[in-house]
């Protein structure tokens, strides 16, 4: 290639690129480094955030922190978060799975199916703070806050995640299973309950766990719906405002109080490790159930 240049052609020269090709290759290599660097950057940020939370949270955490109430521990907030998220999931999971069944078992590809699918995506795109103020208006306005209102808001956030995730695994259930059932004269509802749902159960549970992990960290609705609470007592009662970890972290982060910061780091570590553990476990489960179903 360089023969046209000032060099005379040398048939014994090693076959290395020169001139234009060398420049193109160098640029390509540079682009590769750039892309690799971007991935390293993202993983690095994750590592830094997790490391910071762990390093600053660990000193605050001991048995007392996890098992007592304020001012020494955050047990009421842990219990409150569990109650709020559990109720939200109890609402969102049946609705989400049934919606997914509607889309996979009864869908005829018509306009209504498209509307339902679009609705799920749109709900997913509604900012959580907007869901918060809507539920505030519907349930809380003019009354004291209560935890179940927070659960309703979180249920709306979980719904599209569970429905879409379940829909994906339901679509993976081999058509031959359904057809075999139909050929035997098994009715639709028996097929769904006895064959389709059990074979998709792993995936449905996975998407539910992922939705729970997402809901557990949602803060915006809770600062409107369950933020005025008494953090000294453990309570399971969803008809009053329950202490919860996200609202606690938010409140502490807004105060300039070093002791509060220490508690906020500890709470952050508890919440973050629970969420990361849940999503890692869900991912592992998903990989396994998907591998089993697609064989």
């Amino acid at each position, binding site marked *: 290639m360089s023969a046209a240049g000032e060099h005379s052609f040398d048939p014994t020269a090693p076959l290395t690129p020169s001139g234009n090709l060398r420049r193109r290759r160098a640029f*390509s290599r*540079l682009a590769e480094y*750039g*892309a690799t660097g*971007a*991935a390293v950057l*993202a*993983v690095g*940020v*994750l590592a830094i*955030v997790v490391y*910071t939370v762990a390093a600053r949270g660990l000193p605050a955490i001991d048995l007392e922190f996890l098992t007592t109430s304020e001012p020494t521990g955050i047990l009421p907030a842990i219990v409150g978060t569990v109650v709020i998220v559990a109720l939200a999931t109890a609402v969102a999971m049946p*609705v*989400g799975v*049934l*919606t997914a*069944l*509607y889309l996979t078992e*009864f869908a005829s590809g018509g306009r209504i199916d498209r509307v*339902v699918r679009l*609705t*799920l995506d*749109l*709900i997913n*795109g*509604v*900012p*959580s*703070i*907007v869901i*918060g*103020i*809507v539920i*505030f*208006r*519907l349930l809380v306005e003019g009354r004291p806050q209560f935890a179940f209102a927070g659960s309703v808001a979180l249920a709306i956030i979980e*719904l*599209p995640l569970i429905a879409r995730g379940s829909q994906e695994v339901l679509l993976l259930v081999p058509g031959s299973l359904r057809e075999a059932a139909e050929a035997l*004269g*098994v009715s*639709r*509802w*028996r097929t769904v309950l006895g064959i389709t749902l059990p074979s998709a159960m792993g995936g449905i549970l996975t998407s539910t766990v992922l939705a729970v992990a997402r809901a557990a*960290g*949602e*803060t*915006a609705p809770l600062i*409107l719906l369950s*933020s005025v609470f008494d953090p000294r007592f453990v309570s399971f009662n969803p008809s009053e405002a329950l202490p919860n970890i*996200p609202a606690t972290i*938010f409140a502490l*982060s*807004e105060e300039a109080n070093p002791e509060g910061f220490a508690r906020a*780091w500890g709470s*952050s570590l508890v*919440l973050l490790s629970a*969420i*990361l553990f849940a*999503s890692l476990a869900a*991912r592992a489960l998903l990989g396994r159930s998907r591998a089993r179903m697609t064989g």
Partner: protein
Amino acid sequence: MSPAYTTGSGGRGARVADRLRRVDRVGDGILFGLCSLAALLGVGTLLLVGYQVVDGAMPAISKFGLGFLVHTTWQPNFNVYGAGSVLFGTVVSSFVALAIGAPIAVAIGLFLSLLAPKGVRGAISPLVEMLAAIPSVILGFWGIIVFAPFVQSDVEPRLHDSLGFIPLFGPPQSTGAGVFTASLILVIMIIPIIASISRDLFLAVPGDVQDGASALGATRWEVVRGVVLPSTASGILAASLLGLGRALGEAIAVTQVIGSGSAIHSSLFETGDTMAARIANQFPGYLNAMHEASLYYLGAILLVIGLVSNLLAQWIGRRFDYRRRIAK
């Protein structure tokens, strides 16, 4: 359905078959009813959300009209509200986040789909997606305690020294809480969204088209530039819109790091506020009905922007599906 149950004509078998058929008809009906009900519940929820936000905003809408969007005074004490400055802050912080985050995310997508060996991809992909699992309140807390001081002492002075002639990069402020820091936190939130979608897009680009380009002597970058990116451009745009929607609506983390300023500044390093952040900040302690209605007005704008960006993403994703174009 019936043949499985018919055992003969008349007699006990037929009665059992009859009963079973009835049970099945009822069971099928109940299942279908429940499923339709659930599907309708989702649709109803979305409509209810839209209705309630607009209804709550009605007093402010009728008092301020569309002028709300451009007026920049927001003074609850004087009962005067305008969304101009928060709208500005929302748009600026989100677009800066997108301008920084989208190229990084697409690069990550390229790395995961085309460069990384399968094992590395399997390890890095979940880690990138894990970024999205960090609760925004923790990211915001980290942002204000750890990240903002770093941005203030290390990043902002450098940008100011080298690019200070652009008004965007004014002198660094005292705390590091500001629009720029908020944008960087938003970058962390939108990267996993855009990266995982673009990774899937790139993985779906047919290998033989890429091999063809390579066979013609294209370098790896030229394959990406000439084949991969053009055929997925609409998908990348759709993914970016989804990321943008996320950035526009993020309330908590932004409230924590943006400094809640009420003025419009040309410099990114000054404080500002976004619509979602202002709602999160002021809604729990609103002063009066008009204050509340104005916050609902902000929520309504936010909802409209969120829905429009989402719909647009869907439309672009479908309308310009690259598979359809390649097939043509």
